């Protein structure tokens, strides 16, 4: 299990670094926009997490102008108001706790993405230095952000969306197809396979992502556009940092960084 241990070790360090970087970028660029959107979400009185009677309760907690016919008494309102962002189950409290959980989520998934990146790149020869890592990072960005984001753009709270599961399936299938396509282009020197690769990359977008029945939303178009840009750019930086970090850590680990320098290009 020597190889497995080495892959996990490299992925843990690189994922930690890239996850911390992304968490800092998100605190500055994307989370403030999510918080702004939640104001619209609550003003709208509904919550798109709702599955049952949640909207009535949230609406009552957020607005004293709720219809008198609503059976809600005023007593539960403070409890509802204490956790305005989420109305089901446990959720981290706003402020530091929410920030801390976001950092943890970033680091954990950073290591998860790093595991995938290191394992796949080892099949193809390994990431020998930070420059190769940047190219691998670009591929990761294309696979996990760019391609799924074309059909399912980053969304803010209170934005309409189709059923969750079909979107998750489409997202996953698009990532797999894009990764397979890029792999065929990069590592198989064959025109038919390159054509197949393009077909693989294009196919998910011909099938099309699950879309909501209506695009009506209280979120201003400008805010959403700002969010799409912020998400795309922060994810790009994450993937570049992750790829470069894998290259640096792996080079230190093996002590063969220079001899591998030419293996990619």
């Amino acid at each position: 299990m020597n190889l497995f241990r080495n892959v996990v070790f490299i992925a843990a360090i690189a994922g930690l670094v890239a996850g911390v970087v992304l968490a800092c970028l998100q605190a500055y660029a994307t989370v403030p926009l999510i918080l702004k959107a939640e104001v619209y979400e609550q003003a709208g009185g509904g919550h798109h997490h709702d599955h049952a009677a949640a909207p009535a309760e949230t609406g009552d907690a957020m607005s004293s102008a709720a219809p008198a016919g609503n059976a809600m008494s005023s007593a539960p309102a403070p409890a509802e108001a204490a956790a305005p962002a989420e109305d089901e189950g446990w959720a981290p409290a706003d402020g530091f706790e929410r920030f801390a959980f976001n950092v943890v989520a970033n680091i954990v998934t950073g290591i998860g993405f790093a595991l995938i990146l290191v394992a796949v790149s080892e099949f193809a020869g390994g990431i020998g230095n930070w420059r190769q890592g940047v190219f691998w990072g670009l591929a990761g960005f294309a696979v996990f952000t760019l391609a799924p984001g074309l059909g399912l753009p980053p969304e803010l709270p209170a934005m309409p969306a189709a059923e969750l599961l079909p979107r998750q399936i489409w997202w996953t299938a698009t990532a797999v197809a894009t990764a397979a396509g890029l792999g065929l282009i990069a590592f198989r020197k064959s025109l038919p396979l390159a054509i197949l690769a393009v077909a693989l990359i294009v196919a998910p977008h011909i099938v099309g992502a699950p879309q909501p029945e209506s695009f009506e939303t209280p979120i201003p178009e400008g805010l959403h556009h700002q969010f799409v840009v912020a998400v795309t750019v922060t994810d790009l930086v994450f993937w570049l940092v992750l790829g470069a970090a894998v290259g640096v850590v792996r080079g230190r680990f093996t002590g063969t960084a220079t001899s591998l320098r030419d293996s990619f290009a």
Partner: protein
Amino acid sequence: MTTASVSLGTSVSSQSRFMQLAMAALLGIFVVGFVGFSHLDAVHNAAHDYRHSMAFPCH
């Protein structure tokens, strides 16, 4: 493209090498899937901002 065998896991057979790399990749997929795609409310709420910020399907 065989340069990696020089550096990581020199002594392992190609079959063992494949298995170990596949396991590492599966572990990564599991971790990302759990944090980013789990339908458990508590997991969703804890990673809510992360899911939005990574453009994972959410809500």
